[in-house]
């Protein structure tokens, strides 16, 4: 394991400029991964406690190389951002729920890469735009005095719920190229939402935000006339 890491580091340290320019190449792929939702609430009752929640994401990434080291990354992604909420009253469970907000996201990021033609490391930053199309919860709730398994869809109200989301995106990843037209990669991303889950529809508004940390594995294929090893 240690040996592999050393080889990877040495490979990354080989100056990318030794290789021919890949400016103008476009890749399209498929990726899936794990998402950790991070809930942040400003104000409100302290009777409910919140915890990070587990979900998954899947997407079609797109990457366009301006130069050998600078590229534009985007795509279309589904991402579940979940969080846990629990409320107790005098040692009695009122609810313990996993809440999941379901988004379609379009990230727009600039990506800096360092590679030797076979192995690549990258770091990126940008923004994302999201469309929240579904909100669900599952777990246990006290229904009329008895704990019940709870699973349901929360009605999204266009007057009260922010259907659109936007935020800051940062990413770090690495990939290995197979042949001259494909790459397998792993990426860690952090999304910091600028947009509260609720619209500012009342005085004394309690703002809730949902950030996400994700780790995904994907596979890219060059389309058109591109060639990773050109």
């Amino acid at each position, binding site marked *: 394991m240690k040996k592999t890491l050393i080889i990877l580091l040495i490979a990354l340290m080989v100056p990318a400029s030794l290789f021919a320019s890949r400016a103008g190449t476009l890749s399209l792929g498929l990726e899936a991964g794990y998402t950790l939702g991070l809930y942040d609430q400003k104000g409100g009752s302290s009777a409910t406690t919140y915890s990070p929640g587990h979900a998954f994401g899947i997407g079609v990434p797109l990457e366009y190389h301006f130069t050998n080291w600078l590229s534009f990354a985007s795509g279309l992604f589904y991402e579940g951002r979940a969080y846990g909420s629990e409320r107790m009253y005098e040692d009695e469970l009122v609810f313990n729920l996993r809440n999941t907000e379901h988004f379609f996201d379009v990230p727009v990021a600039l990506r800096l890469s360092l590679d030797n033609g076979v192995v690549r490391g990258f770091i990126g930053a940008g923004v994302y735009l999201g469309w929240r199309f579904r909100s669900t919860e599952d777990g246990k709730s*006290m229904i009329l005095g008895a704990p019940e398994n709870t699973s*349901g869809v929360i009605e999204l109200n266009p*007057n009260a719920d922010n259907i659109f989301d936007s935020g800051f995106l940062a990413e770090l990843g690495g990939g290995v190229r197979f042949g001259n037209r494909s790459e397998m990669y792993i990426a860690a991303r952090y999304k910091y939402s600028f947009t509260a889950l609720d619209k500012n529809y009342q005085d004394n508004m309690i703002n809730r935000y949902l950030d996400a940390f994700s780790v995904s594995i994907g596979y890219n294929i060059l389309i058109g006339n591109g060639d990773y090893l050109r």
Partner: protein
Amino acid sequence: MKKNITILLTILLLLFSFTSCRQDITKVPPTEEVTTYAELFTAWWDKMNKYYVFWDLDSPGREWDEVYDEYYPLFEECGEIEGSDPETQAKVIDYFYDITLPLSDSHYYMELNLPGMDSIRFAPSRVRAYLRAGLTPEEAKDAALNNRGSEYEKYVNSAFRNENTLNILKNVFGINTSVSGEPVYKPFSEDTVREGKLSEYFTQAGYFITPENYDYAVDRETEEINSFAVFAGITEDKIGYLAFSNFTFSPFIYNAMHNEEPVGSDLMELCNSFFDSVTETDALDGVIIDLRGNGGGLVTDLNLLWSSFISEDVKIAEIRGKKIDNRQSYSSWQDLAIQANESAERNFDKPVAVLVNGPTASCAEMSTLFFMALRDNHGGNAYVIGDTTIGAHGPLEELGSDKYGSGEFHIGDLISVDPEIYIIFNNTPIYEFRGYDGINREGVGIEPDDPSVAFNVQEFNSGTDARLNRAFEWIRTGN
């Protein structure tokens, strides 16, 4: 490389700076240590924000904020609570009356206990009933705030006051409903129908009536009920009839099962006699469920009473609570279903006539929805006769806001006897409720299938119950 590091650092700096973009609430939450009317109003307004569940109906936009903006200066003018004169207190009551009047919640009432005056309680649903009966808004306000409903008897819907279980038993069936001391119990039998005018209707009957303000024991703790009357009968042509004043079965049945209390055993015996007939195939050719004047009670009674009618669970409604303190922050809708009786072999598919009227409320309305759902989704045959019900559907729980973050709340110390403590008590449900069909009838009520038979108080008092006769007619003829 240096450039890349600079970019990375810039990104990190931006990330940290974004943290400050997230806004905390703009106002400091009001304290309960209120000394002025403005503080009292703010505390109440804020708790309504958090604990009231019908905001999707009552403030889909910023209407509730506009209420605050409009009324805060008026309450501010009223000054300190301590030492306020009756004229100021009357203004305060007026303001709260005007603010609460448009609320859809038909369970809602506010109780105000201001210093130096008797506590006052008013409910928007009661005012709606007055208005529906033809009172002007001024008369309705006078009736509600000054407890002078009886002075408007000539206007007030006579069914609202008279058409209820005890009066049906007394006027129509000739049963003596004046009970004192211990409850009166007459077993379900042919002997009971010799009493009053019962033989004109039934071949077997039984009833159970408690005195007013009857104390009953639940696990050694005594609770009081205003009055509780249950009547069950079967006619010669196998039509079952069940009427009861409210939903207070569970504590008695619990006692019967756990403590062997004679009172609970009596009621359980009566219920078993009737519901065994429901479960038994071909024992009944139809049933009349009389919910007129029934103001509801314990939700646990719903399964107890109606499970005999079904061999599969029947969804009657959906309920949802609040997730956080914002007005429109709701949980998902959860199904509320009547659980099937394991011994029932089929859903009851004979005709069921459900009698309702204006005061039919809460569990009684949920029961009406059960029979409607049985008809619409499970092969039943139900028909609702009478008047539009009150539209009070959400389930209540004592001081539910502490537990659920929604429902009943108070401002000030409710149990204190200190007259210096200023109180608002606010009665409101923990869940929003909509029918099995997705229709929210809160504040609107359930419209009967047959509203054609008007209530005539003179006829009713002399023993003719036109709506009951209509129910028998529908079951016997199918029209």
